[in-house]
């Protein structure tokens, strides 16, 4: 009975987090097929370990840690990273002339920003995506990258500086953020 309940609870975990974890993996691999595979692998691993997870754990941060490790292993595999760059460059060319103007602008902004992010060094890129795209806490990012909270913050800040410099002249100054 306890087992059945644990499995139902895991269904809820998949429902709550799969789409976001896949989106995260899509951002770090830039390939939908890799995001499909790695997101499945993340949840299969999570399913095996779920029983041993202490009650009250931060499941979302835990899933990001698994996904991050899988993503890093993925890039460690020879040549993959280079291929991902090439694919990202391919996939990010504007290719939809029938979109409304506002949408095109948003798309271009997104594409430019993502191109810059793709070029960041490994840990900075992962930390940046976790913080700025998924709003994880620095402590959670540190846990995912096996580093301290302070190092996680430093990775994000270094990435921010690089992104800021790369987008010089493309930032929509005047459209003040709500922050």
């Amino acid at each position, binding site marked *: 009975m306890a087992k059945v309940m644990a499995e139902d609870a895991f269904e809820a975990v998949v429902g709550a987090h799969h789409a976001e974890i896949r989106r995260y993996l*899509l951002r770090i691999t830039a390939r939908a097929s890799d995001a499909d595979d790695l997101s499945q692998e993340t949840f299969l691993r999570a399913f095996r370990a779920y029983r041993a997870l202490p009650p009250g754990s931060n499941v979302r941060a835990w899933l990001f840690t698994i996904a991050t490790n899988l993503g890093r292993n993925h890039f460690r595999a020879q040549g993959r990273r280079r291929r991902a760059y090439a694919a990202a460059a391919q996939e990010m060319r504007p290719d939809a002339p029938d979109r409304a103007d506002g949408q095109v602008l948003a798309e271009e902004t997104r594409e430019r920003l993502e191109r810059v992010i793709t070029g960041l060094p490994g840990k900075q890129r992962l930390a940046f995506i976790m913080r700025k795209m998924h709003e994880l806490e620095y402590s959670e990012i540190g846990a995912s990258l096996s580093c301290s909270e302070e190092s996680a913050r430093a990775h994000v800040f270094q990435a921010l500086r690089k992104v800021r410099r790369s987008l010089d002249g493309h930032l929509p100054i005047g459209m003040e953020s709500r922050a």
Partner: protein
Amino acid sequence: MSPQPSSCRAIEPDLLSVAAGEAGPAAAGRVEVHVAGCRECREELVHYRALEGMMATVRRAPRPDDDATLARAQLASRLADLRSRMVGFGIFPSPLGRILIGRSEQGVALVEYLPATGSLPAHVRRLLGEDAVEDRAGTEGLRADLVEYLEGRRVRLDWPLDLRRMRSDFQRRVLEATAALPYGAVTSYAGIAARIGAPSAVRPVAQALRWNPLAIVIPCHRVIGNSGALTGYAGRRVELKQRLLAVEGVKTVAAARHDFKVNREAMYTTVTGEQEYCVPTCGDLLSQSLSTLTLFGTREGAEAAGLAPCGSCRPDLHPLPA
């Protein structure tokens, strides 16, 4: 870009925090003071805020390839498969020693004798798989059934079985033929080989039974040598085979080298595939190879298997001495 003064470099982390809206009051105050007197950093703050705004837009914007439907469906099917393979197991004492019973969603997957002490043998760990979990509560009912069986209070273990741990299709055929042997009956390895249409594969049959992952449930203890010797069981524990057969009413006598032997002259006998059973002295039964015969310890056993008494030797009128 001109080189920054050291005060600008020092304020930069705070400035990034302020732009991101994550700065505490102290840092916010420091930034406020600094940018009031530094035009460059004031502009930097504007840029970083614009960048944060841009990222917020991107964060919320839909992506063209952000469709998780396919991955989610594949995940559901892989999880279902993983679940159906996962084994929950219990380890129990029994009249025959320590026994492990494992079950999956499909049914009972493993019944293994364990050494009296120590960790699980390698072949058992392999059969359990890396995802197995101890589940005493989920296997307790099976344990109770098994103990009743070993004490002779139950003649069937009609459990759903998970046969996915077979080593080969050949092993599956051997074990299915063995599972069809009735309670209280014995035949020989050659007899099983004949039943699966591979009469020369006597040794492969013995090997397949040696790695039976469902001891007792698939009654490999009912398969003996052509000579009537029990031959082997659970490694070197042929005494377990003798005890299981005794529970089912099959009498044995001590034989050479720690073995036991079924006394054919004390067994009701049928030619495999025929509808009647006989006393062993009927016709030339005693001179026939065990590979063509099935032996029963009791008349009840033979009749429970659907056999009628032979019309010439009339085992019903002239039973063997008890």
